[in-house]
């Protein structure tokens, strides 16, 4: 961290415009774009990443081409806009000429009050920049993070489907009608745009809610940064930011300093090995989901992660954040525990590996020591049956009431190994230990399934909360076990 790097201003492209602006650490991308830069097409509604009204397209260069991802601008610190190309609703139409998405939304009467409309169009924009002919499932996936209370979604779906048809029918070509004309120009500008402003000076913000925002680019810089504060109470490590920003926006808990690890290259890799997969702590859920190696070797992880949050959230959030946050209900953690993952913890003194099952200590408490960060997740590649179940009030974008993972291995008709993991039943996600002795070495049948379910229920003492009563949770444990094991039986029939 050289002194010359210290600055408070960021530089990025907003639609066709180059923006250079001073920001403070607590300013969100939404606040900057909507209030300070006056692009009021981007709406504010929930401030917790659950409604999608503030969706913007965040473009980053990948092989010289801009790749756009939908993100909830309420959950991005404005500092993260640096070096990006941001497209907002105002950047889609050129003069009076509507973009194809806008035109179809209008023609299908897919807007009523209009407040959710810009966010929905930006989500569709990001979808169509990547897929020229998305199917219904792709459209639903792209839009499930955008709430609309007026239309009932059907006309929005119709609009999106007709865009696909028009693109396939070559009545329009993608390049001309989805991407605004100025994009190629910005691509070339961004290639040479590498102003090294990545660290925000701490003294600049004394007296404000957040004093400093640090963006180390190497592990060394990170450790120096953490050392400087010493006391971990003085900073929060942030990767995806989807939890931290909700804590700031809703609970108004401002950390004294933020250390943003999303720019550390060493943490951003997925490595596929013969017998395991390693995922760096800076890798987003979307990157995991889209990785061909994961799709091939660990499809269950991909399927599980597709049930986490929305497209926007998955574009920001990381699996490591899921773990470090130690939520007792995180879908990703339930899967990882079921897959018998372990984690590498890094500190300036070196590294240590911890079994994930030993990592969680108590409610929101982990084995992470002062000066340590979560560096990498390792998942063994195993043979066997894997299944994830989730019960939540709503199918899309909801935190589970109870979620569970089942791993089973069979050897000549008998269960030779198993793991049942439950979330939402205790202070941490954890294994249901009592299942193994019930099924191990036995042939699975209906009676054994019931015994296993009964055993599992006995070992939990859940609580009642907004997501469900204790009785319901207990019933779900039983039902989930039945569900897992019936699936297993039906596959092996």
């Amino acid at each position: 961290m050289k002194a010359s790097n210290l600055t408070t201003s960021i530089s990025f492209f907003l639609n066709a415009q180059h923006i250079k602006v001073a920001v403070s650490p607590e300013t969100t991308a939404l606040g900057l774009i909507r209030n300070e830069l006056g692009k009021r097409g981007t709406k504010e509604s929930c401030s917790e990443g659950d409604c999608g009204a503030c969706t913007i397209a965040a473009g980053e260069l990948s092989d010289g081409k801009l790749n756009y991802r939908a993100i909830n601008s309420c959950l991005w610190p404005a500092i993260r806009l640096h070096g990006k190309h941001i497209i907002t609703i105002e950047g889609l139409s050129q003069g009076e000429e509507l973009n194809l998405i806008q035109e179809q939304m209008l023609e299908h009467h897919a807007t009523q009050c209009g407040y959710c409309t810009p966010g929905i169009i930006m989500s569709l924009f990001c979808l169509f920049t990547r897929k020229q002919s998305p199917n219904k499932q792709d459209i639903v996936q792209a839009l499930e993070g955008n709430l609309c209370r007026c239309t009932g979604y059907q006309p929005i779906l119709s609009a999106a489907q007709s865009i696909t048809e028009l693109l396939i029918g070559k009545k329009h070509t993608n390049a001309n009608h989805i991407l605004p004309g100025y994009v190629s120009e910005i691509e070339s500008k961004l290639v040479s745009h590498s102003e090294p402003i990545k660290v925000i000076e701490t003294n600049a913000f004394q007296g404000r809610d957040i004093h400093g925002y640090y963006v180390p680019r190497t592990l060394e810089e990170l450790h120096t940064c953490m050392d400087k504060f010493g006391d971990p109470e003085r900073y929060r490590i942030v990767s995806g930011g989807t939890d931290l920003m909700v804590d700031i926006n809703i609970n108004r808990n401002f950390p004294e300093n933020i250390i943003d690890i999303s720019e550390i290259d060493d943490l951003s890799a997925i490595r596929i090995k013969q017998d395991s997969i390693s995922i760096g702590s800076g890798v987003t859920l979307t990157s995991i989901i889209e990785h061909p190696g994961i799709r091939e070797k660990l499809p269950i992880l991909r399927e599980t992660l597709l049930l986490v949050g929305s497209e926007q959230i998955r574009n920001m959030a990381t699996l490591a954040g899921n773990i470090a946050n130690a939520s007792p209900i995180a879908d990703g953690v339930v899967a990882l525990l079921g897959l018998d993952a372990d984690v590498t913890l890094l500190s300036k003194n070196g590294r240590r590996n911890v079994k994930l099952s030993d990592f969680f200590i108590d409610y929101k408490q982990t084995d992470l020591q002062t000066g340590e960060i979560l560096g990498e997740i390792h998942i063994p590649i195993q043979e066997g049956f894997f299944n994830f179940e989730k019960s939540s009030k709503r199918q899309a974008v909801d935190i589970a009431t109870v979620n569970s993972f089942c791993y089973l291995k069979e050897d000549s008709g008998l269960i030779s190994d198993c793991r049942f993991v439950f979330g939402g039943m205790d202070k941490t996600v954890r294994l249901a230990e009592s299942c193994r002795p019930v099924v191990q070495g036995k042939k699975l049948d209906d009676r054994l399934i019931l015994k296993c379910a009964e055993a599992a229920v006995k070992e939990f003492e859940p609580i009642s909360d907004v997501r469900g009563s204790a009785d319901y949770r207990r019933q779900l444990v039983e039902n989930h076990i039945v569900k897992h094991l019936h699936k297993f039986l039906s596959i092996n029939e």
Partner: protein
Amino acid sequence: MTPSGDKKLQDRAPYHLSGGLHVTGRSRFIGEDNRPAELLFAKVVLSPYAHAQILNINTTPAAEIPGVVAVLTHLDIPGENQIGLVPQDEPLLPVDQVQYVGQPVAVVVATTPRIAEQAVSKIEVEYEELDPVLTISEALDKDQLYIPERRIKRGDVEQGLQNSEYCMEGKFATGAQEHFYLETQCCIAVPGEDHQITLYSATQSISEVQIAAARILGIQCKDVTVDVPRLGGAFGGKERTATLWACLTALACHQTEKSVELRLTRTEDMLSTGKRHPFEAVYKVGFNQNGKIQAYSVELNSNGGAYTDLSIAILERAMLHAENSYYIPNISITGRACRTNLPPNTAMRGFGAPQSIFVIEQVIERIARKLNIDPLDVRLQNIYKTGELTPYGQPIEEASGGELLERLRQNSQYLELRKSTDEFNQCHQFVKRGIGVVPVKFGISFTSAFLNQGSALIWIYEDGTISLSHGGIEMGQEVNTKVAQVVSSELGVSLARIRQESANTKRVGNASPTAASSGSDINGNAARNAALQLKKRLAEIAQQMLAARYNLKVKEPRIIFAEDRIFDTAAPDRKLNFEEVVKQTYMERVPLGAHGFYKTPGLHFDREKGVGNPFHYFVFGCALTQVEVDLLTGQSDLLKVYIVHETGRSLNPEIDRGQITGGFIQGMGWVCMEEIIADEKGRYLATGPSTYKIPTIRDLPTIFEIEMVEVDREGSSVFRSKAIGEPPFMYAEAVYFAIKDAIEALTEHEKEVELHMPATPEAVVMAAKNHIHLDSTGTT
């Protein structure tokens, strides 16, 4: 005279008038443009208790923070501390007691939102906690009713029950619902000269805000202007509720003499604003072997929350819909609105009707189960026929419920669907399918007759363009599009000529709230009235011009306005341009402005006796849904939805379709997903979309077929159209019954399950658990 009325609207399917602005992000909601310079920000101190004595409020530590401009309590209200309507029971800021969690206690005004927020946390309020009353049963025990119980009665229920072959009784409770408009409550107040004030308020009711703000500030209506460009959704949640926040902003503006913005966060909004009323009903029903209902008595008890708000009117509409689409000879409907310590529950789409319709539909389902008759047949057995009287004595004219149910049967291929559903259930152990059907009859008009009036103001400018104002608030339902269509159709001009103005108390005074599905009816008729006045004047000038220019002399001139031209049918090729006629009218010093007025005819209702004709007409329709329920996880998938809806002569079929689709999905949220839970202290636990789940695009059915039946009806409104906003909401109750049907498939429909409403996954799992056999040996 010029012909009009029954002719087709010129263009029935224009796009959303603001659609082009919405899709480009150029449409402006409150506070998004012309933000006043030196704008101050208000933030409200909210009560943490549902019921407490206020012992002391210490504002000094907050007032000392640099950037804080004012800290206001009830002591700072210059006028009367009262925002209630009828009765006047709601203070703007409480004097001695708080009555619900989230009630505003004090207001901070500061130079930035963050300073205001910090100052709020520095205000010290000393409370003495009192016991809150939270539930209907507690309130009934303590006799906390807003008005003495109301009753609508016909025939002799006791006798009817005795004469019935079967009798049943039961209870049914329906839950609250958060409006979840995407734009939260907000207002910007701007001071003017001579104590005037302008309020840009997110309200469905400009006049109510105007009256309340004048009262609070000790000024008069002439001093208060309320302006609403559009709302980011409302659904009833900005009808009464907006008044509180607008008046707080007005107070802050008045006291600081600066422009002030107040905008609730989602958390504040969901914590402190009222919801759809939860109802609890107790009923008795007598019926015959063929499923015909002989007698029905129902008590409808609502949880009104801490102040009257609209609870009485909502109770009334619930009572007026208690029999839904069915003729019941002996009926007794009792209604009670309870006062509790929850945020004042308020209007929401359907306004009490969904709650009482749910009860009778539950009754129908139980009758069908009991008699082992198809529920659709039980419905047909009882459905209203033309000429039959409602319990309150209003005749049902043009009853089409039965006919529509038959269409629904055809559209859904009902028998085959039933059969395939049963077959599916035979071979699936833990996943079951079910079917639900619900017909709806919905009365159109405010039940307070005086509200059924509308005003509009039209100016035709010298260049032939038109300024259109009316009392309706645009909140996505496209009242603006429909009213503009009426004017464009009547004046024979393109929509592009018309500038639809914001709703503003200066242009349209004494406007009724935009509610009760009546927006297009009353404002459309009022605008039409204004357009006809102008048309008459223009026609006279046009006739003179035709005579002068073409020497056209016709004994009985028939002047036509079409496609921006004006001509006489006697010589259709001799056309005048609209603008030249306008110009000439101006030159002749004939007025080019007109105020239009409309009052809905024939409405009367005697509340004490429960008799009258409260409705102008009824809207009819019905829906069928099929669901697939995973009884282990409780997850329901909506497979098929068929809706048949009679629109009258739709002003704009695409807008109506949008209302049907949107209303249905919103209703689906209410019946199987959305849950408002308060803790034992009366604090709502779900205060954001992370914990309160409304439907997403993933919840759409695989098949969603809507048939809109266009029939010319006597009972209809402007250009023979019918209102559309609320009726489709109730169709979604069919989803609940489909889920129940699916769970009951566990017992081959022999046993009735107790299914909580909303039928969330939790409700499903808990309802199924006593009937499900987890080992396959135990299943049939």
